[in-house]
């Protein structure tokens, strides 16, 4: 039944309704793929029995003519979303055996739409990383390998690395990711799939383990642009339980597909072409510009002058918020506890044992920039620079409807590389972080291969609440690129 794993969500949706195969058959085919491809380490927890149960229920709803928008579609849920009765770890030792009694709003919406969860996807610990290396549950292997040369296992990107590897390798049809500084878009680019971070406020954050609350957004990771549009529509919508959740109506993103880019103005920011930009990335970017031009878009040169300050700004804002959010892991209410002589000693020992090195580093940085005497110099300063970065985009969108950039500065690298210098790892997100700080939507579309045969992505940004234009540009890129997606494994 391997061929059942080769369908896109849109294809499977239509065939399920025509009863060409059952939801249970579709789920079984993906469970078999999950089993065959265990060595990717894409899942932290698998839930095959729950999946079969839900697939059977989907078949009953299909038979009754009550199919939801994602009825019977096998999905992976990043292990940052709380799932009722299913262990949720954030890939951290400190959440050992934590089993939520509630479901996050986004995963509930996906459940309500009839999708079938196959398990919880691996990620960087607390979503802090760009390689999935920081997971307590071990690294994830990218299904792609470089041609010729070494046979080294490559990272799937991060933090949504289990999600990206599983979607790319056809273990699931789609997966949820979360994106704080690029954690959906960069892994999508590394594994040759589509990843969408919607406008901040589109998806409820309720029940998602918090990293940096003013930046965290959930989004879909799929093999096609259409599938991302289908999945995103289900995930979005107002939620009274998240005070930053938008009350704006959710458009039918799928309905805009096919409208093309004729007449759209596409901005090309000169600051995203620094000296020393990888030549293959640069060449692909130029190709993308050509495709959009050929499809009838107008290319406009724009400037986002504060781009180079986005990463250092992010590395104040995100750790500051993380140090506050992660204060809750204290050994009292859930997860790991290490005994200590006093209450403070118990806290300090629990947190020393429970958090990994990168998480500790970020908590310490965050604590430092928020501490007495440094708050104004670092945190307040970063919030002001953040405002300037957001203003750059506001100004740019007076001249263009969408912005095209590379998603990441390189293709996937080998597991174990870039481990010695935290700042070198942070540079992976140089093209994705600015949009996160501004809160605007961004997507990565697989657009080409390096000479070694590894995927590269192009990033499309639009102004807040204009995902529809973003999807139109993404689809034109997808059609032009004819990206050689991995077959079912």
């Amino acid at each position, binding site marked *: 039944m391997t061929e059942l794993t080769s369908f896109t969500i849109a294809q499977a949706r239509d065939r399920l309704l025509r009863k060409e195969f059952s939801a249970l058959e579709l789920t079984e085919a993906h469970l078999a793929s999950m089993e065959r491809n265990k060595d990717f380490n894409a899942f932290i927890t698998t839930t095959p029995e729950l999946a079969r149960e839900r697939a059977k229920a989907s078949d009953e709803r299909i038979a009754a003519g009550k199919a939801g928008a994602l009825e019977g579609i096998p999905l992976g849920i990043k292990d940052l979303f709380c799932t009722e009765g299913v262990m949720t770890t954030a890939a951290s030792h400190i959440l050992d055996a934590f089993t939520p009694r509630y479901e996050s709003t986004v995963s509930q919406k996906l459940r309500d739409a009839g999708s079938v969860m196959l398990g919880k996807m691996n990620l960087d610990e607390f979503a802090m990383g760009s390689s999935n290396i920081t997971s307590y549950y071990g690294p994830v292997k990218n299904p792609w390998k470089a041609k010729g040369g070494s046979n080294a296992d490559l990272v799937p990107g991060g933090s949504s690395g289990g999600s990206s590897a599983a979607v790319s390798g056809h273990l699931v049809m789609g997966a949820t990711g979360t994106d704080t500084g690029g954690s959906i878009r960069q892994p999508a680019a590394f594994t040759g799939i589509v990843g969408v971070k919607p406008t901040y406020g589109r998806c409820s954050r309720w029940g998602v383990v918090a990293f940096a609350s003013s930046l965290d957004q959930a989004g879909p990771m799929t093999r096609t642009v259409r599938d991302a549009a289908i999945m995103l529509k289900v995930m979005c919508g107002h939620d*009274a339980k998240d005070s930053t959740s938008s009350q704006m109506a959710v458009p039918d993103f799928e309905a805009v597909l096919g409208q093309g880019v004729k007449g759209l103005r596409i901005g090309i920011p000169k600051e995203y072409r620094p000296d020393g930009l990888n030549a293959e990335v640069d060449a692909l970017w130029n190709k993308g510009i050509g495709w959009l031009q050929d499809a009838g878009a107008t290319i406009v040169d724009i400037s986002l002058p504060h781009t180079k300050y986005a990463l250092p700004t992010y590395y104040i804002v995100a750790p500051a918020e993380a140090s506050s959010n992660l204060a809750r892991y204290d050994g*009292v209410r859930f997860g790991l506890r290490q005994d200590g*002589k006093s209450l403070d000693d118990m806290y300090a020992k629990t947190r020393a044992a429970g958090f990994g090195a990168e998480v500790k580093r970020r908590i310490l940085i965050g604590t430092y920039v928020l501490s007495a005497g440094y708050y104004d110099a670092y945190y307040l300063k970063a919030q002001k620079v953040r405002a300037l970065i957001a203003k750059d985009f506001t100004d740019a969108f007076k001249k263009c409807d969408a912005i095209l950039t590379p998603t990441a500065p390189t293709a996937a690298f080998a597991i174990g590389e870039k481990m010695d210098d935290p700042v070198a790892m942070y540079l992976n997100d140089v093209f994705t972080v600015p949009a996160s700080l501004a809160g605007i939507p961004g997507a990565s579309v697989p657009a080409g291969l390096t000479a070694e045969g590894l995927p590269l992505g192009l990033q499309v940004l639009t102004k807040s609440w204009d995902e529809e234009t973003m999807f139109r540009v993404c689809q034109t890129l997808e059609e032009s690129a004819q990206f050689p997606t991995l077959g079912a494994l």
Partner: protein
Amino acid sequence: MSLDKATVRRIATLARIEVPDADLGTVAEQLSGIMGWIEQLKEVNTDNVAPMSGGTDLKLPWRKDEVTDGDKVDQVLANAPDGHDGFFTVPKVVE
């Protein structure tokens, strides 16, 4: 910006993370590297710029201050490493 061992010890205490004395030097070096790289923000003129404190310019909604949930002691305690008789427990804090 260089962080010395004493500063790392102070922020580790604030963050309630035990850092063994033997590791203070390495951590100080790593954090100094990151903070040094962050220093470049000083170049940016932010006079008269209002700080951006959240991810959205939407107005936060108001709701009535009323109880909407509760009576779930068992569920709340279900994941506690050491819950007893409807309570979380901690090491003794009063002599």
